[in-house]
């Protein structure tokens, strides 16, 4: 058993066992954070789509650590195999990446939020520090609840399908009507214009 002390909780002495769960969590969280940061810094829109792809794969990895394997696979199938490819098509169809995508000029009359990239990074860092401080403050009070997963919490594809077909049946049928609306609407919009 690879026993490595990751962090000593202040409230109680707990040696974290490096299990695959923690490794998977760290890797996917790292992938997501790095790609989120890269998304903020990049100007090239194709790179942005690739970093979006990496962020979505990171979120799929996080779903795995939450034992939600069906959701992770749906996320990969729908987002990675659909939405990102659609965005790449849209980027190519809207003239590649020659437009300027970052607000270059400063908006004196508007709040600094619409400032240049540097203000964003400063804002990002300040909010990070604020969040970490708040989390650590709150954590003092929060005693680690020993958490036992109930047996019936089995997020397999069968239990999800059963819930979908029985309790959420109305939503299941409604989603197909929504998809029909989206299909007809988008096809109507994207039809070549008759000049």
């Amino acid at each position, binding site marked *: 058993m690879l026993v490595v002390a990751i*962090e000593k*909780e202040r409230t109680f002495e707990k040696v974290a066992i490096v299990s695959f769960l923690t490794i998977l969590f760290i890797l996917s*969280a790292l992938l997501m*954070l790095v790609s*989120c*940061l890269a*998304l*903020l810094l990049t100007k090239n*829109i194709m790179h*942005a*789509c690739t970093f*979006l792809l990496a*962020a979505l794969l990171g*979120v799929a990895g996080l*779903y795995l*650590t*939450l034992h*939600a394997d*069906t*959701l992770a696979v749906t996320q990969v199938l*729908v*987002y990675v195999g659909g*939405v990102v490819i*659609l*965005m790449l098509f*849209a*980027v190519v*169809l*809207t*003239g590649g990446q020659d*437009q300027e*995508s*970052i*607000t270059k000029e400063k908006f004196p009359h508007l709040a600094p*939020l*619409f400032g240049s990239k540097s203000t*964003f990074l400063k804002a*990002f860092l300040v909010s*990070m520090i604020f*969040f970490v401080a708040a*989390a650590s403050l*709150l*954590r003092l009070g*929060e005693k*680690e609840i020993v958490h036992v*997963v*109930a047996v*019936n*919490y089995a*997020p397999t594809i069968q239990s*999800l399908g059963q*819930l*979908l077909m029985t309790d959420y049946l109305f*939503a299941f049928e409604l989603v197909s009507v*929504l998809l029909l609306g*989206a299909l007809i*609407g*988008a096809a109507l919009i*994207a039809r070549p*214009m008759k000049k």
Partner: protein
Amino acid sequence: MVSLSSFLFLSFVLFLTGLMLVLGRKSIIFVLIGLELILNAAALNFVAYSRFVTEKLDGHLFALFIIVIAAAEAAVALALAIRFYQLKETTHLDELSELKH
């Protein structure tokens, strides 16, 4: 230790990145990327709470519906972006100022 607060932190970062992309960028496609991230942050929260607190599968189904509707929304939004490009030959949002093209 992997606990609920770590997932809340991660979805907070996702939400923040999405928000900053939506507000700070001037190209339509960037705004849509930011939107996708915000939707993902919400879905991640649902699953995290369903795993650590409620232990019921409703969170999973809600996240599934979020993914489905986000995909349909992205399809329509990108169709609008392409039509906007056909009319105005640019995707810069400042051109999107009049109601009638």
